[in-house]
């Protein structure tokens, strides 16, 4: 029982990171209709930046949480301005291909810049783990787990609230509903797209900072995060931010549970199984957003 609870908490922690990455993916998709396959690369950049700030520069950890979202947000905005903006009139098919190769370019750049296989980043919060007694058993929870769980989820919820209630969020939702209509109401496509990429990039950067201590920094991080974020997004219906949070947590739980009770191979397979099952039986996701009738 205690072991089970610890596995659950570990799953929620990983799930919270996935959720954060998925929210960024969906914000960009909702506002710009682009599925950003380079998102994993942005998360990896965030983790790498955390390494630079915390380990190389030896700056205080909180600076990583402040600087990195801004930094990765700017990188994402630059990608949108320099590469995706000229492709706005190209069809979505080719844009998807472009983001796939952008993602690889990001992780290749990292690989070239840093010749090590994997960089280690210390935990943000140190201190002895907390012990909870449960009858005979002892539940051990590290402070890092609590911090990542609560921190990532809080950021995710803030992102959700921004998208729902802030003026910038309104502009993105307007774009999502009807590009022409939003333009006619005075929203500039270029501005809204840039904002969406900034917000998406910032969320990806934060996801990287949260992921760095447990996952390490490596090019593989990019691929594992993009698939996880995508699966979380699909489980949630791809257009629902709340669905993505739930989808991320579900995926995190499924992964750690199958790693603990089935096999480590199952851990890598389970996300794909989930994706497959959801796409085939409920392509609209478990938590679809209500959609108007297409006229």
């Amino acid at each position, binding site marked *: 029982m205690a072991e089970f609870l610890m596995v659950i908490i570990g799953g929620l922690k990983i799930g919270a990171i996935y959720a954060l990455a998925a929210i960024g993916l969906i914000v960009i998709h909702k506002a710009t209709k682009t599925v950003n396959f380079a998102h994993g690369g942005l998360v990896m950049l965030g983790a790498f930046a955390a390494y630079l700030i915390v380990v190389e520069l030896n700056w205080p950890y909180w600076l990583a949480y402040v600087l990195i979202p801004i930094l990765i947000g700017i990188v994402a905005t630059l990608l949108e301005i320099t590469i995706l903006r000229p492709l706005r009139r*190209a069809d979505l098919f080719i844009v998807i*291909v472009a983001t796939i*190769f952008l993602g690889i370019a990001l992780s*290749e750049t990292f690989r*070239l810049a840093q010749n090590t296989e994997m960089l280690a980043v210390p935990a943000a919060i140190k201190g002895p783990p907390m012990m909870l007694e449960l009858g005979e058993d002892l539940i051990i929870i590290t402070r890092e787990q609590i911090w990542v769980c609560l921190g990532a989820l809080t950021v995710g919820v803030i992102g959700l609230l921004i998208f729902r209630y802030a003026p910038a969020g309104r502009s993105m939702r307007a774009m999502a509903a009807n590009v022409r209509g939003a333009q006619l109401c005075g929203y500039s496509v270029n501005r809204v797209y840039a904002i969406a990429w900034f917000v998406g990039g910032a969320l990806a950067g934060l996801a990287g900072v949260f992921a760095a201590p447990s996952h390490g920094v490596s090019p593989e991080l990019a691929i594992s995060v993009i698939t996880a974020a995508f699966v979380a997004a699909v489980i949630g219906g791809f257009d629902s931010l709340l669905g993505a949070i739930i989808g991320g947590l579900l995926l995190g739980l499924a992964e750690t549970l199958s790693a603990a009770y089935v096999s480590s191979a199952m851990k890598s397979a389970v996300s794909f199984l989930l994706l497959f099952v959801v796409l085939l039986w409920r392509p609209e996701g478990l938590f679809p957003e209500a959609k108007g009738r297409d006229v």
Partner: protein
Amino acid sequence: MFDRLRRNRAFRNLAPAATVVLALLAGLAVDGYGQFVLSLTVSAIVIGAALTMLVGYARCITLATGAMMALGAYGSTLLVIKLGVPYLLAVLCAGIIGGIGGFLLAVPGVRFRGHNLAMVTLVFQAVVVILLREWRDVTGGAEGLNVPPPTAFGMTLTDDYAVLVLNVVVCALVLISLAVLVNGAFGKNLRAVTGNEVGARAFGINVERHLIAAFVASSAIIAVAAALNAPRYRIIDPDSYGVIVSIFTLSYPIVGGMQSIWGGVLGGGILRILPELLRPVADFIELFFCILVIATIMFFPGGIVELLSRALRLNREGAAAAAGPEETRLAGPAETVSPSPAASSGSTVAPGGASAPAALITQRVRKRYGALQAVDDVSIEVAAGSLHGLMGPNGAGKTTLFNAISGFTPADSGRIECFGEDITAAPVEARIAIGVTRSFQHVAVFPKLTCLDNVIIGLGANGIWDTFARSFDESVNGRRSAKEREAARWALAAIGIDGKAEAPAGTLSLGDQRRLEMARAIVSRPRLIFLDEPVSGVGHQEAELLKELLQRINTDLGVTMLIVEHNIKFLVDVCDTLSVMSSGRIVAEGKPGDVIARPEVREVYFGEKKAAP
């Protein structure tokens, strides 16, 4: 002219294979390692060409190429070492294994497009690699398998040049068959599907089956190419076929160009040789690839092929010709319908007599969207040989009824009959076989195909096996493809756009595209044509011409027509019978002149209340 076409077609199908044979000559000039690289390059050319079909023609992003290569390499190797199957037979079997893999991937996969399809292929890729890693007893797990050297006709091939010869022969044969498919009816149908899916369905192209076939064919070819390469690597392991391989092979058709099989041939060839030339900076090669792909997408989307052909054209015709190819927009004087269209056909079908079954009967058709009863108990009868109009204000349910009749959104209840045949539940693709075709409110021509090819698709012989047979027939200039072209030319002449037979449909003016749709609708000599708002967005003069055209088709070919339209004047002028819909019901029916004078119709349109009694 015909001779030139014949030579041209043979050239188109054989030339890609000829480039592979060139590798044999190149192989004489280089050392053993060079020959080794050439063998790999030949395989890359084939993989690139197969991906051009899947990515360029069918527009499916696949991230499962590595998995298909793994199926071919592991499949053939296991057959050789576990079952003692001769190498060449094992390579053939690898194609079958790859084809099965493609089928398993595509059957669930083609329900999706775009990013979801890309993810499904990524799932397949990941699952195959996990299986290779975990099924240690068979695949050797992460350490991989030792691959024995290739054998042919009882001899073990150890010489690099001998292996190259073998690879070239197999790859050339594969490329020829691929070219036959892609340049023939199959490739054109794929272009039609991606150009306009709705239009493709209406003319009998089963979209899913075509995409599945594209996956199966390309996967089989990729697996064969990988099976040929496996002995060259000596050891194969899961890492040689990971997702990175999938992504980098995806760059072959993108960088090479996606408009023709040449894109994959050049892309695969160049991108496989390039790393060998760039050995001193080998570390940067992946990044360089990424930049190359993104630069291609941004600055020359046609890829290497387009750059080359532009350069060639410049050389041949001077700078002036390159600026304006002959098929620029032919707007303006398009309003010249030839006066005697169907006369040349000589086979005028008499309109159905009184005893003939009605062309179309709907009985109590209903369709509901949420709270809205869009079509409510509609029963209409379209007499054979008539021009039947269906009008009604916005939201009256015309389009919903029309979609139920043409099969795009099935009705909730009721019965729909064409010429006595129940078609209520028949799929869209089956309509053309019983002599029913349609036009579209928003023109649904296939922009990349020539007008002639557009019309040939209208003949409706687009079942997947039929399409393969037609591709083959076309490659050998068979009688069937000659007949198809003849029929298509007749239809184009009947509508009066035969001068544009070879122009891509996308370059035509809107009026000509509508005419092309008519040619496509009549070429199969249907008995009934559904016209969805044929004059929406068309000027007055153009509408007059279209009216004459419809009447001529009706009388000369004996085709019944059901016309849904907003333009009341047009309907009254052209139709024999007029039905008026409002709020999902038929409110009036009869002779056009009478119908529009009726108070209930005037109420619907002008809000005029019936005079109080």
